[in-house]
């Protein structure tokens, strides 16, 4: 079988088309080429959708992309996997799951990692960071430290990517996860407004950005450097509402601030050229698509694990008795405790499991108890997000069951012998690498509050534009709604990038904790070159 040299994410069925072959490539000769010929602002308002063959023309619901094998073995395995998929889908639907159709792609692990680095989109704009991400996923795999197992993309049909070379019982688990997530994407209120053709839209973005890079008037390096800058502010989107086309008309004031910094820059930055506006706009759309995922990570992980348990428990005919211990060991790796992080699978699963128990208690006398319980759970899946889930349903028992604690870098374990050696350990910069973390409490309320803080705004700091004419010199004033310190050096560099994109001075109103643990109200500002720090009263 002929192996194509240019293998990156190309399905064998996909024709080899040069990415530069857009309508822009046929544009008039260079002499007439002006900025007006570039994809100017406004052109993007009709999103360029480019069909991704990989996602659309699926010869079979399960595709196996394993070229090394003989077609016969390939076919056999494909049929087996597809039988599993069908059985699971039927069982899930019987139990009340309502998923989008799921296209499952099984592929070699290396290719899978390349895809995972691009967050599951086979066509992504060219940028080195995918390469770095890919290699950082790859190295732990080489060391045997950890594996990445599945990527599921919110799309219609949902695209699920699984690595091959796994035993059947693992594929089964991953397929159940994919089905549950598909159901979650379809039914969660937070995904209501998302674009279900994101796969194609992102491929369109990739085409446009590639075309910009191929344009002699712009060049690949300029595009790459610009994307670097936008990447540093790409999480500054409004996490509270779905994306709107364009930008609001009413002015930004302190009482009526704006969180969509990317959208603001697209519309109002005097610095950006037309093509740069387009790039910002495209990345803004991709960022907005990420928002509901960030907001419901715990819920979605918990939902997937819960359904894995549920489907397995209810369908004993699917059990692989010979491999039952191996399967549970695999599940144990998923449910591993993490000393410095919350295992979202485990926490989410525990919440759902306890809720189920609770509902069963409540509906003890109901004639159709099983269905009613699942119905109640589906309602939670539909309406809640991470913060509300924790706020409403996390209990003391779960925290104790999960052995949860809060840790803190500031409280040091007292060393009883310190005074004898005359050792004095200065408090030091508590953002410094190597700062030790210590268990500070096992109190339920502490843990709950800390979790809520962690999941607030999808785990991103809340930063909003308060004024666009600060200091009466077109200064952009940002306010950090303080929950925790920003990472200091990152914040400074980001501010410099932002000032370059805005073309004028940018201010950030935030709080910083100093070495003694005292909080100071500060105003950081940058003109695109340097950082000025001023303490506020």
């Amino acid at each position, binding site marked *: 079988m002929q192996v194509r040299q*240019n293998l*990156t994410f190309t399905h064998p069925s996909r024709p080899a088309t040069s990415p530069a072959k857009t309508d822009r490539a046929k544009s008039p000769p260079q002499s007439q080429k002006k900025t007006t010929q570039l994809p100017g602002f406004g052109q993007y308002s009709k999103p360029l959708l480019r069909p991704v063959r990989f996602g659309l023309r699926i010869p079979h619901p399960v595709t196996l992309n394993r070229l090394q094998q003989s077609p016969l073995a390939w076919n056999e395995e494909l049929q087996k996997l597809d039988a599993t998929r069908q059985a699971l889908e039927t069982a899930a639907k019987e139990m009340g799951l309502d998923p989008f159709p799921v296209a499952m792609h099984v592929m070699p692990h290396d290719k899978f990692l390349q895809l*995972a680095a691009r*967050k599951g989109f086979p066509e992504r704009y*060219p*940028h*080195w*960071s*995918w*390469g*770095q991400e*890919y290699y*950082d996923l790859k*190295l*732990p795999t*080489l*060391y045997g430290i*950890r594996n990445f*197992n*599945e*990527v599921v*993309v919110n799309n219609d049909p949902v695209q699920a990517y699984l690595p091959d070379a*796994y035993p059947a019982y*693992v594929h089964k688990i991953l397929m159940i996860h994919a089905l549950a*997530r598909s159901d979650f994407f379809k039914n969660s209120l937070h995904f209501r407004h998302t674009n279900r053709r994101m796969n194609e839209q992102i491929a369109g973005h990739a085409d446009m950005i590639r075309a910009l890079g191929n344009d002699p008037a712009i060049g690949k390096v300029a595009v*790459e450097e610009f994307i670097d800058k936008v*990447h540093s*502010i790409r999480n500054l989107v409004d996490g509270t509402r779905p994306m709107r086309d364009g930008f609001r008309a009413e002015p930004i004031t302190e009482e009526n601030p704006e969180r969509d910094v990317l959208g603001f820059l697209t519309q109002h930055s005097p610095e950006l050229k037309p093509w740069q506006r387009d790039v910002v706009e495209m990345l803004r759309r991709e960022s907005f*698509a*990420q928002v509901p995922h960030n907001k419901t*990570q715990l819920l*979605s992980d918990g939902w997937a694990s819960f359904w894995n348990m549920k489907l397995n428990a209810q369908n004993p005919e699917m059990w692989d008795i010979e491999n039952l211990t191996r399967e549970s*060991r*695999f599940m*144990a790796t998923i*449910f*591993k*405790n993490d*000393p410095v*992080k*919350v295992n979202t699978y485990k926490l989410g699963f525990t919440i759902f499991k306890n809720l189920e128990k609770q509902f069963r208690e409540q509906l003890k006398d109901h004639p159709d108890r099983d269905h009613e319980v699942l119905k109640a759970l589906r309602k939670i899946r539909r309406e809640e997000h991470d913060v509300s889930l924790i706020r409403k349903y996390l209990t003391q028992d779960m925290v104790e069951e999960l*052995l949860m604690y*809060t*840790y803190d870098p500031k409280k040091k374990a*007292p060393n009883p012998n310190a005074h004898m050696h005359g050792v004095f350990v200065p408090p030091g910069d508590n*953002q410094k*690498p190597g700062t*030790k*973390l*210590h*268990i500070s409490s*096992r109190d339920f309320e502490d843990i709950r509050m800390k*979790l809520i803080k*962690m999941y607030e705004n999808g*785990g991103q*700091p809340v930063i909003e534009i308060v004024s666009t004419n600060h200091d009466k010199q077109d200064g952009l004033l940002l306010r950090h709604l303080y929950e925790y310190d*920003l*990472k*200091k050096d990152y914040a400074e560099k980001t501010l410099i*990038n932002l000032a370059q994109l805005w073309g004028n001075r940018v201010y950030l109103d935030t709080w910083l904790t100093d070495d003694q643990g005292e909080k100071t109200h500060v105003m950081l500002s940058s003109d695109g070159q340097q950082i000025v720090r001023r303490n506020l009263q």
Partner: protein
Amino acid sequence: MMIQLFPQNPAAKSRQPKAKDNNAFAGKMPALKTLNRDTVKFGAGAPPSSDPDFQRYFEIIKESARRDLQKFKSPQEFEVTKDGKSVKIPRDYINTPHFTRGGNEGGVGQGEGDEGDEVGELDENGQPKPGKGEGKGKPQPGKGEKAEKGEEPGEPGDEPGEGDLGGEGSQDGKPDDWNLEISRSEIARWIGDGLELPNFEPRGANNIQKMETTWDTISRLGTQGNLHRRRTLFEALKRLMAGTQNFDPKKINFQRSDFRYQSFTERPIPKENAVIFYILDTSGSMTADRKKMARDTNFYLSTYIQYQYGKMNAELRAEKPDDKDFGNGVEERFIIHDDKAEEVPEKDFYNTTKSGGTKFAPAYEEIKRLIKEKYPIDQWNVYIFHYTDGDNFGDDNKKSIEILKELIDSGVNLYGYVETRQQEGMGGSTTYKNVLDQAFGKNNKFIRTSHIKKVERGEYAQALKDLLGKKDN
């Protein structure tokens, strides 16, 4: 009695490749977690993936590694590979700055332990990572540990990936570092280009004619293993067809005279050989800093000369210089001395911490002896580099200058004298540099001197320039 059919060329015999212990740096480097499969080669090797974005990323880090190394990074910051022809340097992770939590507000974890127990620490990005600590808050026993160690091939690791556009899941599990391999030839090219050092030229008639054998002829003598069957058959056919009218090609008998064997011819090819003597003063006055200056400079000096000889020899053979040619024809000898001198392996040269008095003469005597015994000066280019702080015992000056004069008169290519001390001679006292100037004059063709004042990258460059650069006069 055994007859040697193909006696070995005596010239070749005398220059058997010696097992080079070029891995001296490797022992000294801090232990890096390197596995061969994780080392990305460039120069000769290609990026390990066909992913175009990875290739771009690779270009970027390669460029940054190059820039870093060009500033004369200290050899202690990287590792020299076993064959001594390339170095491995750790790459930095490229961070994209963004507004994110500072990591100093703590968080929530899971596991056993009491209040005040240590559970981890902040990593380079200020994000919490699990510590190796006392087992507090580690995963529950029996769960997940097997897969962590990768004991069972095919057994998947810990958790499924993000079921979405990505998120934070990929953040953990980042490796601490991985290495880029850069050939020393490439380093030498950077040095040469940056400092405008001249290329070495062959000595002309003096270079050695190495006999090279090529298996390209047919002979009547040889071993059965080298039998050339086609030619043998051909000869037999010739004989039979000439002798008989109607011979049967199915019945061929071979005679002794038919046998032909593959054989070789010997051609002389020119080769330049060089021996480099490195002398390091390990007397009490050579502080750790002074030794570091010497050793750091020495790495780049050695790199440049080895590269030049490899290149020169390749050109003499009319071939294109390759990374493999690095160090071809060069032998390095390491001598340390206080008031006695001894030849040491390279490893010791870079690691010794001895102390004692200072006498130069024994070191020069040692070189004289080595040249006499092993490196006849009409066949070898001889370079001597001497690192010292210049505090020779006064009574040794006269004797050492005498021996040095002898050496230089006998045809040493270069005597490089490198003084590593923070100031000029203290309180009017003279260093050995003044003695050298008095004895040989400041512009002696065969003597170069340099003075390194501090542990700084620019200083090493200046030293290389002084020792190997073009001289104005």
